[in-house]
């Protein structure tokens, strides 16, 4: 039950919780007599379908006609006139308008938007019913800007944030590109290098004090940390970076201190300790600026951007990515350019601007391919898969996921493997392949827990959803067969509320 009395901060941008918005939308439909124009902001196709089903379930007495456009339409009103049933339904849901709008910043000046604005007075007569336009964020923005007269006759806008168990999770965040070469080594070679460095370090440590090369040891700690990080061995990686930090401090090597702080920041970030990560990045950034190490500054800005993104501060994130991008361009650091583009693509994705997101991913993908940066390639494929997934193009999505997974498995990049498995699991859960979905989500969950990743919670939610879809009996039997244990408490609780 929703608590209507709860006061909110009305001036902080953001969305209300799903239950509040669903109740309000349902109310608005019940109240409406004749034409009324409602907007529902929802970026993802599967979520949209689920919400539509939910509204129907809450209004069983209502006839609702769903009109989905999978092709561009030039004139919405005419297109609706052709499709409306007779007798008229009690309400009309329209989706797929994003196909009629290019991704460009000029979306608001297209003929589709112009026609929409010009035909505003004819809507009440042609559709004397509540008309609900389900649109992603960028389409809403284009309409508000380009069709202000139509927008001003709206009765309401209801917004739904992506829920944490869905595509919002498992995003592939590309960190700054500085170690892409290490990350792109095949797993066998990573193991080889790791073993070789460990041997070397052991030998250094056996040398008499006078003969030890502390600077070489510092370089080796750092290198070892990067290799371990690339294999998802976070505790060991952290240990090596901490050793490096301590040594750099002893040596008075400010550049080394900055580098270690940056790496430690990344390890906090992957575990969701954002405050600590930010603290480390900022300390590192300060030194790098003093040293005029522009490549390092770009990496810091990039990762701080990713932190802002993880906390939902999208504008701050964009600002950081753009600053990082500018430096990388000046330095002709193409890997840096590619990772900034990737992250800017992620921001477009979050706003539902899929075309712009795709543009960025493809650009990033092309650079990564040119460099032989396979880890970047895998990241782009993963995200392009998510795009198709969000649009409901399951085949395309699966194809991209599998190509990404093939690469990350070869690289031993367990974190990326788990993310992609999680998404394939979600996809199968949506398409009814429950057994496969179960195995993938369970495997992803195990990895995320081992990595202490915040994605673990998302995987748990996905499993709860799967249990609801599949049926408790079948799910529980599969659980017992796979784990040899009874279904744990957390699976029987209701899904976490949307954060």
């Amino acid at each position, binding site marked *: 039950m929703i608590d*209507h*009395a*709860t*006061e*909110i901060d*009305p*001036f*902080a*941008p*953001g*969305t*209300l919780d799903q239950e*509040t918005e669903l*109740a*309000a*939308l349902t*109310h*608005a439909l019940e*109240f409406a007599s004749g034409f009324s124009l409602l907007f529902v*902001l929802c970026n993802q196709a599967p979520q949209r379908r689920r919400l539509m089903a939910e509204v129907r379930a809450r209004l069983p007495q209502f006839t609702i006609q769903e009109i989905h456009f999978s092709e561009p339409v030039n*004139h919405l009103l*005419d297109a609706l006139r052709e499709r409306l049933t007779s007798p008229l339904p009690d309400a009309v849901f329209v989706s797929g308008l994003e196909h009629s709008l290019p991704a460009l910043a000029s979306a608001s*000046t297209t*003929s589709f938007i*112009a026609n929409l*604005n*010009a*035909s*505003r*007075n004819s809507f009440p007569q042609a559709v004397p019913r509540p008309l609900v336009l389900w649109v992603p964020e960028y389409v*809403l*923005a284009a309409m*508000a*800007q380009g069709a*202000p*007269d139509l927008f*001003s006759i*709206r*009765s*309401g*806008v*209801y*917004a739904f944030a992506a829920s944490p168990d869905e595509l919002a999770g498992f995003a592939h965040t590309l960190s700054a590109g500085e170690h892409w070469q290490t990350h792109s080594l095949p797993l066998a070679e990573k193991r080889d290098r790791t073993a070789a460095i460990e041997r070397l370090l052991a030998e250094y440590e056996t040398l008499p004090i006078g003969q030890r090369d502390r600077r070489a040891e510092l370089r080796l700690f750092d290198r070892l940390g990067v290799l371990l990080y690339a294999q998802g061995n976070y505790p060991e990686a952290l240990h090596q970076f901490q050793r490096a930090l301590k040594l750099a401090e002893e040596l008075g090597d400010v550049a080394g201190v900055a580098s270690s702080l940056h790496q430690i920041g990344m390890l906090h970030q992957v575990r969701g300790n954002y405050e600590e990560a930010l603290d480390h990045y900022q300390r590192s950034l300060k030194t790098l600026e003093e040293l005029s190490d522009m490549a390092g500054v770009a990496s810091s800005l990039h990762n701080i951007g990713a932190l802002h993104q993880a906390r939902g501060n999208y504008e701050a994130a964009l600002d950081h990515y753009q600053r990082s991008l500018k430096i990388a361009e000046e330095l002709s650091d193409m890997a840096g350019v590619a990772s900034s583009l990737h992250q800017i693509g992620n921001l477009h994705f979050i706003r539902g601007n899929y075309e712009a997101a795709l543009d960025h991913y493809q650009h990033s993908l092309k650079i990564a391919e040119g460099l032989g940066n396979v880890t970047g390639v895998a990241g782009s494929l993963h995200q392009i898969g998510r795009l198709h997934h969000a649009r409901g193009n399951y085949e395309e999505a699966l194809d991209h996921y599998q190509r990404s997974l093939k690469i990350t498995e070869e690289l031993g990049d367990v974190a990326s493997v788990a993310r992609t498995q999680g998404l394939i699991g979600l996809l199968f859960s949506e398409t009814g392949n429950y057994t496969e979905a179960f195995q993938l989500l369970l495997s992803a969950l195990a990895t995320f827990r081992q990595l202490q990743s915040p994605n673990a919670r998302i995987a748990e939610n996905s499993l709860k959803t799967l249990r609801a879809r599949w049926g408790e009996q079948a799910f529980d039997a599969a659980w017992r067969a796979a784990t040899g244990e009874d279904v744990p408490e957390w699976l029987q609780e209701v899904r976490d509320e949307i954060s």
Partner: protein
Amino acid sequence: MTLANDHLCFLLSGHIGCGKSSELKRLERALTDVAPTEDCYFPVLIDVSEYLDDYDVSVTDILLAIVTELADTLRAKLNVELKDSYFTKRLNEIKEFFLSEVEIKEGELSLGSAKAKIQRLKKDPTARQKVRELLEPKMSTMLEEINLVFEEARLALKKQPQPGLLKQPCRDLVIILDNLEKIRKIGAVEEGLASQRELFLERYTQLTGMRAHFIYTVPLRLVRSADGPQLEQRYGPLFVLPMIKVIERGTREPFSAGVTSMMEILRKRLGGLELEEVFHAEALDFLLIYSGGHVRNLMIFVQNACTYTTTLPIPLSAAQKAIKQTVNTYSSSIPENHWGKLAKLDLSPDQRVPNGDEDYLKMLENLSLLEYVNGGDDDIFAKAEPWYAVNPIVRELKKFTEARQKPTDAKQS
């Protein structure tokens, strides 16, 4: 109009959703609903968006709309059929472009029955283009002929009307063009302000060359631009509908007379319920304050607030939720370089907008800046002068408060 010995032209402007159309409808009623001793005027209210494609307009389209609507109104209200032959002929020359074969076979198209058919041109760019090709070379003749149509109409108005149609004979015609300010593109001219300049300033001889009283709605953005003063010289008196003044100029203290009239507007729409039954006091205050005196915004907020509650009176929390999406729209759509300017205006002692700054014109258009009048105390000039206040919702946003605290933005002059 009664005192004037020539035809007059008036301009009406104001923010989107400030009530222009409602005022024009009121005027339409008031013109015929007069005491026997007063002069009666026959209004023809044309919603041009029924005829024009905002993004592709030519002056001939507007003239055609005027003639068609006039003929239709005369037929509907007075049972008068215009006998004009010029436009009837032209219509029948162009009818093949927008009539079906069946309709063409039905014979001659009369002016009085052409409205629905002419309106089809709005959605048929090809037909529209062909019609223009035929009519544009005849523009000066068209203007002459339109004036003849007006003469014919006036003659009909001065005759004693049939019982039940009008109280008394009408002295003249008043042609009202509503939604004309929404036109975005004229011919090949660039969209937006440039097109609006083209229509209202470059082509003004056509709009002012017709012999009847005219009222045109013009975009506020053009009125407040550097070219604004020319409008009044070329047309005549300009009326700007301001926001209802709900706060005092400068201090932003509530202005009780304005708040009371907003409450009155609301009360009339409550279907007999009392304000107290519908709103918790703090919810009502919240909605009134954050409407900024903009009537349509207030109505949208109220409608929206109703959906966030299951019981009446509406609690504050529902009112707060109702403005959430407006908050989101403003915080994501206001261009970065506007925040400093908004802050500067907010901090300025006189709340005036620097002349010729296009950014401020954009702010007026997207309602981040609202226009008020009656800000002065006793000075009659200050009293009539418009002043501006940042939209109260925009004022609460983080980006605004940050910009307001930045000394550099505030000091720049």
